[in-house]
């Protein structure tokens, strides 16, 4: 045992408060090592799933939730980006683009990375609850006093990455889809 490690004799002689502290720290260690492992590792086992559900409220509250599945199990196989069609009350329209990382300078990419992440989530149907807020924000950004925005359409454009066996790269044709339409209300522009 390394010097300084509290041995059984030392622990027996420790003050009651120290004993309690030692016990509490051990419970804290055991619980967190076990809980974080069960949470983060992709294991499909009913026992582990029940344990995850048990610790979920604590993890969500404290911010200990985590997932390390970047580019996995399958990396994304399409290039995509978002745009918005803004239709004004006078019938005119404009195309508004989210910042696209590939069009920004290296420094700008550091600062605007949040947009990349946000766009990634916005394209996910699971987070469709974000779409009205995003549409309202775009409406405020494009608000003209003479003719305010009437309708916002969120558009996704995508192109497949075509697998090849040589060292060339092929992309498929660009497709697009309007996945959300929002009628702007006067109070949205305040």
């Amino acid at each position, binding site marked *: *045992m*390394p010097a*300084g*490690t*509290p*041995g059984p004799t030392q622990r027996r002689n420790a003050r009651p408060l120290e004993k309690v502290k*030692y016990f509490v*720290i051990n419970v804290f*260690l055991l619980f*967190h*090592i076990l809980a*974080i*492992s069960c949470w*983060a*590792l*992709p294991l499909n086992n009913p026992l582990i799933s029940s344990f995850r559900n048990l610790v979920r*409220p604590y993890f*969500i*509250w404290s*911010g*200990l939730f985590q*997932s*390390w*599945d*970047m*580019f*996995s*199990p*399958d*990396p*994304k*196989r399409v*290039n995509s*980006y978002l745009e918005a069609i803004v239709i004004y009350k006078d019938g005119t329209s404009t195309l508004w683009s989210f910042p*696209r*990382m*590939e069009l920004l300078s290296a420094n700008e*990419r*550091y*600062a605007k*990375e*949040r*947009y*990349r*992440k*946000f766009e990634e989530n*916005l394209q996910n149907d699971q*987070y469709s*609850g*974000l779409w*009205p*807020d*995003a549409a309202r*924000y775009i409406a*405020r950004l494009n608000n003209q006093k003479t003719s305010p925005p009437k309708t916002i359409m969120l558009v996704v454009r995508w192109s497949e*990455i075509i*697998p090849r066996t*040589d*060292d060339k*790269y092929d992309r498929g044709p660009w497709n697009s889809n309007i996945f959300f339409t929002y009628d702007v209300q006067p109070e949205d522009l305040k």
Partner: protein
Amino acid sequence: MRLKSLGDAWNAFFFAPKSPLPIALFRILYGLLVIITLLLLRPDWLTWFGTHSWVSLSTMHALERGPRLNLFTIIPQNDTWIEALFWIFLASASLLTVGLFTRFNSLLVFLCLTSIQQRNLYITSGGDTFLRLAGFFLIFAPAGAAVSVDRLIRIRRGKEGDSVLPRPPWAQRLIQFELALLYFSSFCWKVQGAPWVQGTALYYVYHLDEFHRFPMPSPFLRPTMLKLGSWMALALEFSLGTLIWIKEFRYTILSLGVLFHLWLEYSLNIPMFEWDVLAAYVLFIEPEDLTHAWSWIRGRVAVKALQRS
């Protein structure tokens, strides 16, 4: 193996007093990374977290249910208060970096960090998550026991001598554990996907426009190299998650890990993630080696100064 020897190993690992130098250096790096993250966000504080942000607080509550540690739910919902929270956060991160009122500031930094993430989870990525998790365990660590203003104050008041007292490293171990788990979990996720096992994954990753950073040298885009690269990533993540605990392999694996992250930093646009993770490598360096490195640097600086004079 006996139960007693298992208990002794546990005690030695978590409680045998060790120099707090690695955790103190980690505190400095961690504080700097939090400051950089905040400054990069500075033009968009209100864009993402203001009263008229991309995602409203009520939408966030509707989508991400359950009680959460989130100071945004306590402060009044106006932009002045929200900006004030960010300035307090920045000040606290600066104090944590220099090690003044370290324990209090580590708690405050964690509270602010977890709050801004909980306020808008849809813009957070792996680096942010790692900062949040490390920040949680840093609260419990003796992060101000060395290289800190707190220590200078204690020395001045006669409460501490010249030598830094060793402390139980259990909180530091939890951050180390979190880092190793990050790698091991990434490895486990990847081996579940056919492209990683077949070696085609990097072809897709390198051709995602949004992740392009600097031009890739063409030999790295050849199918053989992409295969090797995909498998090397798997091997490295496995090693960094497991073999890193074996002392004989540690420095070799850490060196490979540094090269791995520098390569990712060059080739992919994943801002801050590499630096957030690399900062925690310092926790795996033996305190004696850190002291030797520091003595060597001081020696070199002294020699240079003498040469100049």
